[in-house]
């Protein structure tokens, strides 16, 4: 799907799996580079979705970042060790981690 042309310098975790990443790139880019296409399941029908626009407009790249839900992966910069999970359906009421 995509191939990196620049070296990675850190790792993040996606659903508990460790993925290589590059500090400062968007989380969405890091996931796509690792072959991840489905970022979330929609609250309406539960169908899988991935990013469409990568510019903050489509809200299809929503993920859970360090416990904070419905984050736009294309607008969150990668930092080493970031823990990311799929956004499943609507936000739930588990307290967002600070």
């Amino acid at each position: 799907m995509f191939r990196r042309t620049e070296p990675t310098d850190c790792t993040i975790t996606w659903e508990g799996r460790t993925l290589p990443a590059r500090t400062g790139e968007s989380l969405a880019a890091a996931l796509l580079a690792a072959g991840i296409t489905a970022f979330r399941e929609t609250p309406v029908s539960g169908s899988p979705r991935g990013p469409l626009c990568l510019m903050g407009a489509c809200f299809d790249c929503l993920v859970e970042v360090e416990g904070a839900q419905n984050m736009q992966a294309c607008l969150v910069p990668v930092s080493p060790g970031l823990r990311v999970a799929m956004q499943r359906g609507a936000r739930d009421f588990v307290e967002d981690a600070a």
Partner: protein
Amino acid sequence: MRQALVIGGGLHGLSTALHLARTPGWQVTLLERRHVGRHSSGVNAGGVRRLGRALPEIALSVVAAEMWHGIQALVGDDCGFRATGQVKVAESAADMARNEARVAEVRALGWRHEEVVDQAEVRRLLPAVSPHVVGAIVTRDDGSADPMRTVMAFRAAAERAGVTIREGIAVTGLARTAEGTIRVQTDQGDFEAERVANCAGAWAPDLAALAGETIPCGTKASMMIVTERLPAFVDPTVGATARALSFKQTASGTVVIGGGHQGRSDKAAETSTVLFGSLAHAARIAAEIFPCVAQARIVRSWTGTEARPPDDMPVIGESRTLPGLFHSFGFAGHGFQLSPAAGAAVAELMARGATNLPVAAFSQDRFAVPA
């Protein structure tokens, strides 16, 4: 056939047109300046509420509530109505005392729909409510409906009943003809009718002025918030005793928050502006009463413009300067629930000059300056 015109394609205009068109012998045309449901009707909170009504409004509200429970039969669609109850929470002992006095007052008049409940019951009804809530008034058969779906259902029913709906026509003048009918001048030619209804919402006082009648009335632009979809956590529509709040979760999971916080309306431009400095108070009250929504994202906010008489009660009655013209406006942020009954009442007033429905308290005569 006798001709009638309804001016204004909001819910009250549609309901009036529908009821009059179902009255044998009447042909009804509805004129709407923009499109049906353009302002408050299409965008209000959809509260179907008797709870907390001003005392003169209770009787009509009770009639309307019965009509809502039969709304499918009335308009051929359920309008998204769900009788999930209305709850007005008490946040302090003082609130509780106020609620008890209020319900006693309502019961003394013979109404039984309002009920005081304690902390355990309010927690059972609203498991997500903040622990500081100590009780509530509850109306169990109230609920909410989907405003735009309601507008479209009333529109479809009105059209099936024979109403001609003309959108994009603005009224510019009202005059009595030699034959005793009313000529309605518009930007697209004149219309003539024996009876005319003024259901023009925020612009209805201007229409009354065209008929030479001054009815004191301000404008309201109540602001609303809707959140992203959330898991189902609250069934009833929730208000607060001492603070401005209306809070409900829709069938799709979004939460609609209002309560009468006012934006800025520009009647001439037909626009209104959300003022976030004051809308912040709605967000704060909501998040204090339901702490679980503090992290929920706001997806939109908006305002709906409508008329607001000085006493916050509607104006329903025949014009004192242009007989044959009937006013129905000024619902001041609580007209959605009343619309089936108010429309029926106005249609009866138009068709036979009288109604058994309890609308006498809403005559504009209450504003008349004693001579």
